[in-house]
Structure formats: C-alpha cells, structure tokens
C-alpha cells in the first residue's frame, strides 16, 4: 500500500515538472518582462535602470538558467512575488486555499450523493416518467452556464426573496464566534455550493444511470438471481458496487474542472478563495500570481488523482496494489 502510493507520487513528478516548464514559457509569452512593467510604472525610467532591474531579476541570463532557477524556486514553494498585492505569491495562495476547499468539498459531496441517488432512481424506472424527468433535468444541467446559474440564484433567493446573502463568506459586522460563525458560513455557502454542483449532479446522474443499466445486464446478475437472492440484495449488494467504479474515475477527472468552475462561482459570489484570487490577479494582470495559482491547482489535481487511484484499488479488489 505504502509502496503503491509512493510509486504513484514519484510518477507524478515528471508531470509537475512539465507544468512548471509550461508556466515558465507562458510567462515569457506575455509581452514585456517584469523589468519593462516596473519601469513603465515608475514613469519612463532610463535604459540603465531597466538594465539594472533585468540583472536583479536574472533576466539577462540564458533561457536555460532562468528555467532552472524558476524550477528550483518553485520546488521550494517560492512562487515569486506579487508586485500588485505586495506579498509573496505562495503566502497569498495559502491564505486563500481554505475557502476553496470548503466550497469544493461541499459541492463535491452534494453532486456525488445526489447524482448517485438520482441515477439509481432513473435506472430503476427506465423509460418511465420519473426517468424522463430526471433525464430532462440533467440535459438542462449540462447546457447551463455555471455563472448564469449563480446569478439567477442570487436574483431569486437573495434579491427577490432575501433568504440567502448575495456574497461573501460570512457576516463581517456580526463578529460571530464558535458555532454561530460556522452557521453563518454555512448559510453563505448554500448558493455558491448549489450553483457549482448543478452541472456535476447532471454528470454523475447520467453516468450512474448508464453504468447501472450496463452492469444489470452482466452474467453475475443472472447468477445472483438464480441463487435466489432477493432483488434488493442483487441491486444494492452486487450491481451497485460495480456500477460505482466509473463514478470514482469520473470524480478524479472532474475535480480539475470543478476547480476551474470555482473561479467563476467565487467571482460571482465574492467567495474569498483561490478562484476569487485568480479573478483579482486577472484584473490586475498579475501573471506571477495567476501562474502560481495554475501550478498549485494542477498539483492539487494530481494529488487528488493519486488518492482516487488508491481508493479505486480499495473498492475494486481485482486491482492489486503492487
């Protein structure tokens, strides 16, 4: 088990290196280097000053050395400096990880639980009105822009009916502590989490339905029924367990897309996580910060996928941990 995890982690290293190389070149693609930008901001600096800045940031060295320095820095979690926010990029990102994790975990839980339940209901009522209704709703879920759902929920539940707050993570003026604070945050979480979940509920519902239908045609189902097992036991003991495997795979695939979705949802709801930070970085054209967020989230996705692989092996005894 430990060796399996270790091996998967080692396999992740080249991918992470490639992400660093990619972000290094992305940063270089941007017109003008940081020396130009800083010189421009201080208002028409002299050639000498720009040269001095270039030397200071090592921009006069060869491309390869710059790349090596960059990788070395990132490896020690030195993601550069955000000149707009006057703070180290790594510090900025760390301070914003918490809210994003809360939002994503909640949306993930909502979408996977509802998706599985709706998928089971649909599969057990194939081609009946319930199934058709669920399929209609999930088709709609597939086609709705995330940010628009968020805005419409604000329009209905915050502006018209004043049930939920429009934005933020907590009521700053209330100075809540302890349980009251948790409740306040949960209250603020409802709309963003629901908006972020809708698309994924549709994804998991569909997958669960088709996976259940596919599994129920398998030979082991006939065997189980021939043994005289009650229908419930066949479905929930045998079919469901096998049908859940594709859901797990999909969860690993979708986690990256959910992280992207959180940029949109956080910027709609002013939820102070990494997504909102990326949005702010976008407006300030703070590319250091933006690529820093890209690196951190890619690494997060890679780590989550290692976890998914381990879980997969735990759930499916046919895959051996070697």
């Amino acid at each position, binding site marked *: 088990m430990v060796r399996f995890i270790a091996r998967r982690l080692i396999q992740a290293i080249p991918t992470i290196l490639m992400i660093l190389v990619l972000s290094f070149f992305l940063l270089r693609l941007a017109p003008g280097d940081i020396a130009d930008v800083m010189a421009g901001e201080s208002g028409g600096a002299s050639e000498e000053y720009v040269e001095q800045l270039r030397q200071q940031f090592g921009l006069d060295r060869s491309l390869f050395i710059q790349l090596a320095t960059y990788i070395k820095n990132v490896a020690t979690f030195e993601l550069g400096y955000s000149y707009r926010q006057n703070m180290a990029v790594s510090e900025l990102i760390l301070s914003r990880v918490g809210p994003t994790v809360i939002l994503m975990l909640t949306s993930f839980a909502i979408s996977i639980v509802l998706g599985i339940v709706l998928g089971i209901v649909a599969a057990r009522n194939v081609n009946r009105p319930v199934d058709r209704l669920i399929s209609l709703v999930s088709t709609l879920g597939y086609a709705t822009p995330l940010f628009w759902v968020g*805005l419409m929920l604000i329009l209905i539940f915050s502006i018209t009916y004043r049930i939920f707050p429009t934005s933020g993570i907590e009521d700053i003026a209330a100075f809540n502590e302890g349980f009251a604070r948790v409740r306040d945050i949960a209250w603020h979480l409802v709309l963003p989490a629901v908006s972020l979940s809708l698309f994924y509920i549709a994804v998991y519902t569909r997958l669960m339905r088709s996976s259940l239908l596919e599994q129920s045609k398998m030979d082991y189902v006939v065997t189980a029924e021939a043994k005289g097992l009650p229908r419930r036991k066949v479905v929930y003991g045998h079919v469901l367990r096998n049908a859940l495997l594709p859901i797990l795979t999909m969860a690993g695939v979708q986690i990256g897309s959910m992280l992207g979705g959180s940029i949109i949802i956080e910027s709609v709801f002013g939820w102070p996580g990494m997504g909102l930070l*990326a949005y702010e970085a976008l407006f300030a054209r703070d590319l250091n910060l933006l690529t820093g967020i890209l690196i951190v989230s890619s690494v997060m996705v890679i780590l989550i996928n290692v976890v998914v692989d381990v879980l997969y092996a735990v759930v499916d005894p046919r895959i051996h941990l070697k």
Partner: protein
Amino acid sequence: MSTTAERFFRNKTAAAATLVIGLIAVVAVAGPFLYPHDPFAVLAKPFEPPFGTYPLGTDVLGRDVAAGLIYGARTSLTIALVASLAALLAGTLVGAVSGYYGGIVDDVLMRCTEFFQTIPTFLFAVVIVAVLTPSITSIAIGVAFVSWPPVARLVRAEFMSMREREFVRAAECLGAPDRQILFQHILPNCLAPIIVMGSLMVAQAILLESALSFLGLSDGSTFSWGYMIGAGRTFLRSAWWLCTIPGLAILITVLCINIIGEALNDALNPLLKD
C-alpha cells in the same frame, strides 16, 4: 435500412433542435440586416425594461439589448466554431499518428495528451488568454488549446482498432504512402464518432467562451453573450433582464447543440441503441 438523415429526423426533439439552431445561425449571419440597429449606439434612456419600445430593453448606457444579443450570437458562434474546428484538427492529427504508429510515438504523444488533461481546463484557458492579452483571437486559441485532448484519445482508440484491419494491410502492401493510409483509408471509417464529438465540442466551446468573456477576458470592442452577462451583473438588482436574457440565449443554443449531437450519435450508430 434507413439513411442516417432519416433516422436523425425521425427523432422529433432533434428535428426541433435543428430548426432552432438553424434560426440562431440565420440570426447570427443575417441579423444586422433583419434588425438594423447598432449594438453600440446609445439610443434611449438606460434600463428601459423589455417589451417596451425596445423588445429586450436597454442596458446601462441605453443601448439596445436585442441588437447586442444578435451581434453577440455572431461572436459567440464564430469563436466556438473556429476553436472547435482547430481542436478537432489538432486532436485528430495527434490521435491518428499516435494510434496508427503505436510504440514510442504513441507513448510520447499520449503522455502529452494526459498532461494537458491534468491541468485544470478552465484555469489553463484563463491563463492562456491573459498571457496573450484578451481578444477574440486569444479566446479562440485558449478554447482550442484546452479542447483537443479528448479528441486525440478518441481518434487514437479508433485508429488502433482499424490498424490491423485487412483493408489497411492491403493498402500497406500496395505501397500506399502513410499519409494516404491515415487520411484516405482509415479516417473516413472513423468519421462517425468524430462528428458526434465535434458537435458536442461546439456546445462546450460556447460555454467556455461565455465563461471567459463573463470574467471580462475580451477586448471590450465586441459584444458576446458572456460579456453582456458580465457587464450586466452589477445591475442585477435593478435590471434583471441584462443577465437573464443572454444567459437564456446561451442555454438554448447549448441545449439544442447537445440534443443534435446525441441524436447524431443514435442515427450514426443504429445498432448501439437499446
């Protein structure tokens, strides 16, 4: 045996969706002639509600929302089509080479593909557009750049299953050049799934493009549906229609394209349908 088109149009929902998409396409192409109002022109008081003098109301500057919507259809659809086409071409090329040659070429190309699938798609697109400075072109590049990996994997699987077939072996024995085998012999035989994926990709591209423009990643000189929603969100409280209407346009378009894509899948693979 019925033709693909017959099977497709027997599906009433798909026929209706095709009609709607046809109408949207006509509006996008001929809109400025059918509804000759300049989306940038300040015509009236700001925040005129819909169904008054102006069918869909006016925005914060008193510009006609309906004209913006028509103009936006053109931008959104063009970007989505161009980006999808580029991603489809790139993905097909990578997948074809990878699937046909196998071995180390396949290893390297597939590692690359997996790598691009690991990076959070939307965030990657945002960074690409931001780095290239926001414009219609950079949005199309960003969308295309994050959309090709699934195509490559699909095409690779198709080519791998075709590689050992007799007609491919025969062409090889006849000394046909690789280019001809790949694109004249194998490719036509895997067009069906590529077409289906392509149509679904246009829908995804519209969603992606709208999200990027919503975040303000456009040069501001063009209207697109996402941009309209992004510009209108500040006035959600006082002018609901500024966000609601373009959002409905996106929803309807994407929904119809998805329905068409699925119906195409059923029509092209009649045996798969249970």
